[in-house]
């Protein structure tokens, strides 16, 4: 895979600067992609990785710097220009048209035509040839609409699309974010096939382990600047983490002093269907007691969302029961559950947790519409709501400390602190927190972690859903691992290694094949470290959330 020295680099970016208004997203970045290599571009969200590659792909106009492809300086005004120079990009959000077939998607914009009609036979032949050449397993799906395919296949369709358009240089933007561990392995195989055939790849990621595993060289970006380039063979995750954040971040598990009390929140044999009518939660049961955090770990999309919605009253259950204290709340409405004292920090703060064009005062009422002192009979006491908003802003360190600010104007971390504050101030008995630190800066993450631990010490029962192993292990008293809608195991965080957790999350047995399976779920976590001194990139994000800063 080493670069051949007689050819100029596939891509050479010199001194690239890109500003959005006052924000400098890329600040004089240099980047070189050699022929036939996999080059990882590593950095936290908002560090400018995607921006840099979007400049290369012609999506953004750069403010300064030069782009050379195969030694020639090029100017790209649009993706079409980039494509003409054989640069292709696989976006984090797939650029696929769901109701259209694989074949139609691949040829979109480059349709072979005959007599004004699309020449399907010719298209079919070309696409099948590409699929077969790299062993992509796409040929048999040519007439399947995209929406009927798994994410892994969709990603390969995206790659085929780029190759069909003649891409020699492929940029993969966070390609593993949506994949299961098995699919990630499959992707790495595909990447190898591609470089073996002489293609050059840029692999954008924020996951240290993946960068080391899949790349030949790694360039780290921080705050829009290139921190350095290292060879994957000569580096360690600690070194990369240090380069990414500028200091070492440790999540230590503090020994706890209190012991859990009575059961507060229970689920029994819960079955829940997802949006498409498929069963997404299968026979899940648990008990959370006073002063206890139950962590629910799992790769995104294994039924956590549906489970949480069923617990909080946003989704009806197929069968089973949910109990709060001794009350059966299985069919209780969302409002009833709020009033009873089940607080909820939702997974998606932009669509659920906040009304973006409301100010913080009006957002402070969200969920409190029927709760005293804000509601008196049917009327709202806005001065009480304003006081409430002010106290949340103050106590939860929301910046800027202005309750009249529009929610949309806050950064992701501050939005999240506001939501966490509002939900805690409900004075709940139960807190369901779903990915509360996703897309949030490191300071806010620590703040939110501390608050959750305070709540636990104050005797609340907490259900904490996350796909980041590090924080799950740090906070939880027990960890339930969810895989394909089931709790595959419930473990004690103190006697499970991260590797074992990773196996569980990938649907393996805990003990059975630790040695035979080298790959762990490694989702946002620090990889193969020992759990005691584990590092985690801050603000890592497991799903294509977008987030305020991206």
């Amino acid at each position, binding site marked *: 895979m080493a670069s051949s020295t007689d050819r100029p680099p596939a891509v050479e970016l010199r001194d690239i600067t890109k500003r959005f208004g006052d924000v400098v997203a890329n600040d004089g970045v240099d980047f070189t992609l050699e022929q036939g290599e996999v080059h990882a571009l590593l950095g936290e969200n908002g560090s400018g990785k995607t921006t840099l590659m979007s400049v290369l792909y012609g999506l953004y106009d750069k403010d300064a710097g030069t782009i050379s492809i195969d030694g020639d300086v090029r100017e790209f005004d649009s993706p079409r220009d980039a494509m003409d120079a054989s640069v292709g990009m696989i976006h984090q959000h797939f650029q696929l*048209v769901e109701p259209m077939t694989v074949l139609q998607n691949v040829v979109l914009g*480059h349709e072979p035509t005959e007599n004004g009609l699309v020449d399907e036979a010719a298209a079919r032949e070309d696409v099948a040839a590409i699929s077969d050449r790299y062993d992509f397993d796409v040929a048999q799906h040519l007439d399947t609409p995209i929406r009927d395919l798994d994410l892994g296949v969709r990603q390969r369709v995206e790659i085929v699309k780029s190759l069909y358009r003649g891409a020699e240089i492929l940029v993969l933007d966070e390609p593993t974010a949506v994949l299961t561990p098995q699919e990630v392995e499959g992707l790495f195989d595909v990447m190898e096939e591609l470089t073996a055939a002489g293609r050059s790849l840029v692999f954008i990621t924020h996951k240290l382990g993946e960068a080391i595993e899949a790349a030949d060289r790694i360039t780290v970006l921080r705050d829009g600047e290139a921190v350095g380039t290292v060879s994957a063979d000569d580096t360690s995750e600690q070194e990369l983490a240090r380069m990414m954040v500028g200091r070492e971040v440790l999540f230590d598990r503090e020994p706890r002093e209190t012991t859990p009390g009575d059961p507060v929140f229970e689920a029994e044999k819960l079955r829940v269907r997802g949006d498409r009518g498929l069963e997404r939660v299968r026979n899940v049961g648990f008990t959370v007691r006073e002063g206890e955090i139950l962590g629910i770990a799992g790769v995104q999309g294994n039924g956590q969302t549906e489970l949480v919605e069923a617990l909080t009253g946003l989704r009806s259950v197929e069968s089973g029961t949910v109990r709060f204290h001794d009350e059966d709340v299985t069919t209780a409405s969302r409002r009833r559950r709020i009033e009873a004292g089940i607080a909820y920090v939702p997974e998606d703060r932009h669509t659920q947790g906040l009304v973006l064009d409301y100010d913080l005062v009006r957002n402070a009422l969200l969920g409190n519409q029927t709760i005293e002192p804000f509601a008196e009979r049917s009327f709202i006491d806005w001065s009480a709501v304003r006081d409430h908003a002010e106290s949340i802003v103050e106590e939860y360190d929301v910046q800027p400390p202005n309750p009249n600010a529009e929610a949309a104007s806050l950064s992701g971390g501050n939005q999240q602190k506001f939501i966490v504050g509002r939900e805690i101030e409900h004075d709940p008995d139960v807190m369901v927190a779903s990915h509360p630190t996703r897309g949030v800066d490191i300071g806010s993450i620590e703040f939110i972690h501390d608050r959750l631990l305070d709540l636990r010490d104050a005797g609340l029962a907490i259900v904490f859903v996350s796909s980041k192993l590090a924080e799950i292990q740090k906070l939880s008293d027990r960890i339930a691992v969810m895989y394909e809608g089931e709790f595959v195991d419930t473990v004690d965080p103190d006697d499970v290694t991260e590797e074992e957790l990773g196996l569980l999350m990938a649907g393996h047995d805990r003990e059975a094949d630790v040695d035979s399976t080298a790959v762990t779920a490694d989702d946002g976590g620090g990889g193969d470290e020992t759990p005691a001194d584990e590092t985690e990139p801050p603000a890592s994000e497991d799903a294509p959330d977008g987030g305020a800063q991206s």
Partner: protein
Amino acid sequence: MSVADYAARNRFRLGSAVALVAIAVLAVALLDVPLGDIVTIGFVERSLRAATPIALAAIGGLYAEKSGVFNIGLEGFMIFGAANAAAAVWLIGGDSATQGDLWLAILAAVAISLVYAAIFAVLLIRYEADQIVAGLAVWFLGLGFGPFTAVIIWGNRNSPGLVGIDALTVPGLAGIPVLGPILFNTSPLVMLTAVLAVAAWVVLYRTKYGYWIQAAGENPEALDTAGVNVTRVRYAAVIFSGAMAGLGGAVLLAHAGSFTGTGDTMVNGRGWIGIVAYLFGNYNPVGAAAAALLFGGLDMLQIQFQTAGIDLPNRLVNLFPYAAVIVVLTVWGSTRMPSAVGETYESEE
């Protein structure tokens, strides 16, 4: 998409349509309705005539929506089409206009609709106007300026008798029993609409432009990164939809032979029904045309009831298409819309 594919995908839809027909047949049998007097060759022919304006507007509307822009102004564009065609035929031929004049007038009406639709498209796409509100505005404009035009020209909101389109008799084919009089001895605009519906289908599903339109409405970014200008595709689709609705209005006039500007004008909700027709037809041009035929048939029931001696007040029978629209929307309301409908798209920054 082949016919078999379409059938497989729309099993529920087709099944319900069959069930509806079965219920109607059963009702006819039980209530002893003189079916033979209702479903006559004349009725089918009249239904087709009534369906054409709706079908044309529906095909236009579905192109716009497929491309990601909800053109809710179809009704307004139809009113303009009818009023402008009436004005044009009067200006060209006065009170002794010929068939040729009428065809010219239809062309002129479509040309004017193109201009209006282009302005509308600029407002929607460039100036990001609220699609629903702007669409309603087109309706209001039609309701105001359509009759206004009539008053300016004729001093009355209704025109005097102008010229209606003559039936086109295809020698030989017209003699075929049943099909002959329905298809080959009727308004040539019926045939034209059928041809346009099939052509619209071919373009949408078999040409690259059709691919682009679908992609623009479902995932504009995908189209953009494929190097196709999304905005241009949407402009084309919206302008086409306005022109088709204008043609629909002009055809309505050509079939009626005079302009009516009182009340909700002669268009009287047909543009809105067109929207429902394409929803019912699941955004398929041929399906939309078929759905339009259903509404056209309901529109013509009144005459059949009269000739069959069924005594139902006209005013109530006239409401059948509107009631049918509500039923259709209620049963098939959750049709999946293209996912990017109503979202503006800017390709950079």
